[in-house]
């Protein structure tokens, strides 16, 4: 069972710490799914933020594409981001089965 980690605090530090936890757990073989709330989009779009750099390396940690809220705003963000970063992101599925996740952590 996977762990869902939601990043929804609009600070560089909180988003970094949530992402760092996700990557550490993934390193130890724990399946992790990241979810980026719209509140962290301004950090995601800042090339100087640690979140920006870390999201580009999700596949190096064998992590699935991070989910964004399924709305028009996310579509706009995906279009604005560099291609290599946008390739690591996808809109959340229409139906999410809560039983697929053993834990949901929020940062």
């Amino acid at each position, binding site marked *: 069972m996977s762990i869902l980690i939601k990043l929804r605090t609009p600070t560089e530090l909180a988003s970094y*710490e949530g992402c760092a936890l996700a990557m550490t757990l993934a390193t130890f073989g724990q399946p992790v799914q990241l979810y980026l709330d719209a509140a962290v989009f301004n950090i995601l779009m800042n090339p100087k933020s640690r979140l920006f750099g870390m999201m580009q390396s999700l596949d190096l940690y064998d992590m699935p594409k991070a989910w964004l809220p399924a709305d028009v705003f996310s579509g706009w963000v995906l279009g604005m981001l560099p291609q290599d970063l946008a390739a690591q992101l996808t809109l959340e599925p229409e139906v999410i089965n809560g039983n697929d996740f053993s834990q949901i*952590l929020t940062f």
Partner: protein
Amino acid sequence: MTTAPLLLITRDPSHPMAQLAFRFAKAYLESHTNQKNDNEEGGSQENSNPNKLAVFFYGDGAQTANRLRWQSADVTDITKLWQSLVEEYHLELPVCVSTALSRGISDSDNSRRHELLGDNLAAGFSLVGLGELATMMNDRRLLQF
């Protein structure tokens, strides 16, 4: 025996969830004292023992380990409450070193390494790497506070 939970404390000590985490840990330890005594000979005191309650302070939760955090007398000092569980139940209080340092909380080793003036880690707490959390999980139920 069921696997004991791992409490991931990410809230600032002033947050109600941080208070709830302490109450949960205390109630859990009290209710399992008899079981602990029964199994004491074969039981391990290490945090990796899945039968023992484990806690991990991360993010804003690291502020709990700041011994210089002053509060007025009418506010509960949650740092002291956690320290009481160390004395009573030998509970370990690991804190993520990265999140602690970024909030100005350091022990003597890290202060020396990072050339910081002084240290302020409260007694009973220890600074550890984030990998420690992954090791502690060990199929435990993770509860975030």
